[in-house]
């Protein structure tokens, strides 16, 4: 029953706004603990750590839940907005 995050997201429909990511991680040397926790907490697995220990995001699979925005609100490491109208995740069932 267990499944990879890729297989899960593969089931979903997205309309990606190419070149216009709706979430950005601001450049940093060392990520805060809050930002680091997102590597695990993001339900779409959008966050990862690179070889320098910095946290990066690829928001294509984002389900727009807002969790990372809430977790990192005090650190200011994330710029978060909704995708432009009509873009982003498109739930068939929800």
């Amino acid at each position, binding site marked *: 029953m*267990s499944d990879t995050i890729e297989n899960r997201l593969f089931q*979903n429909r997205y309309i990606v706004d190419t070149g216009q990511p709706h979430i950005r991680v601001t450049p940093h040397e060392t990520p805060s603990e809050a930002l680091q926790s997102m590597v695990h*907490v993001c339900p779409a697995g959008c966050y990862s750590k690179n070889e320098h220990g910095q946290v990066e995001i690829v928001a294509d699979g984002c*389900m727009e839940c*807002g969790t990372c925005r809430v*977790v990192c609100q005090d650190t200011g490491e994330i710029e978060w907005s909704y995708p432009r109208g*009509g873009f982003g995740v498109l739930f068939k*069932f*929800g």
Partner: protein
Amino acid sequence: MSNTTRFDAIVVGAGPSGNAAAYTMARAGLNVLQIERGEYAGSKNVQGAILYADALEQMIPDFREEAPLERHIVEQRIWMMDDKGHTGMHHRSDDYNEERPNRYTIIRAQFDKWFNRQVRDAGATVLYETTVTDLLRDAQGRVIGVQTDREGDGYYADVVVLAEGVNALVGQRSGLRPELRAEDVALAVKEMHFLPQETIESRFNITGGEGVVIEAMGTITEGMVGTAFLYTNRESISIGIGCLVSDLSRVGKCSPYQLLDRFKAHPSIRSLLEGSEMKEYAAHLIPEGGYRAIPELAGDGWIAVGDAGHFVNAVHREGSNLAMTTGRLAAETIIDLHRQGQRCTRQALGAYRKRLENSFVMKDMKKYKDVPRMLEKQGSTIMDLYPRLMNGAAQTWFRVDGRDKKAKENAIVKAAWHARGLGLLGDAVKLARAWR
């Protein structure tokens, strides 16, 4: 529609709260504009989902004839889980096979689309694929309309109904409300699993349109404050789990989908899902901070409803009904002012608060106002220790192994005492107080 049209009301969002507000106002003859960022109403929305008929019936008495409903609930299972099993309560009655059933499972994307069609049929104008980015204000700071991500000068109205859901970016970024605290929101993930109708009916011992819901808590959330659910739809099963965001980020090592995987693999759940095909994976926040987390609900030219007003009763898993009811009550407040030719000032909209106080909405929110704080402090005891103790006690009690019953009783009491000592009493008092 030209941008210079002035509306009686603008509704931001087409979830249950926005649809209820827009529908009620449009039916009363107000000129309503509703704005939704999704391609269609429901395309961004996630719910378990149980629909509570009463809230909808107040607006659309014959909704059962047309609304996309899955199953009416005849059985409720509440499970306290440990790693190997569960102990709990089941309640089932043939009385729920009634002419106007009280609770249904629904599929939100389909339901919202239907509800939103009623809004349009009632005469409201609905704009899709449009995100509201800001509020427009006059020189005195009163809200007079909204700015969107479409080209143009925005749209103007006497009042803006913020039905934008839990993230409530418009309200926050306009300074009408504070940002959500991580302690006050749960992150839930959910999957849709498809199975043939007959398989679901035989596995859950149901026929026709009957449905079963399972609500579960316990070691499945690894000591974090959270719950899991499994709901039967006609040809699918909705299964999900959610935990407080503060707990998830503090632990920092637990992915929500791993929790869901473990829940699905649990011996009590596994066989219910066997052979199913997963067709969607979704995630959404739930506002669970309760009464104390309710933000300012109205001001000059604006009013907040549904999840944007933090209206969720987490103890009873109710949200969509509070959303619909708050949406309707806000609309009725606005309709009254409109008919009296009064402006929607902060003071005039205060009547909304009074309507809320007189309804089950605020009464229930107040009743459980201390539960979130209690869970913040006692979370792991309640979510982890007690389910273990209960399951241990049940095993001690039900196994027939030559030990006499008095010795078994002593063993059960001793296990609880050993685990929690005098804390047991304190927990009981705190729980009773929070529940009162």
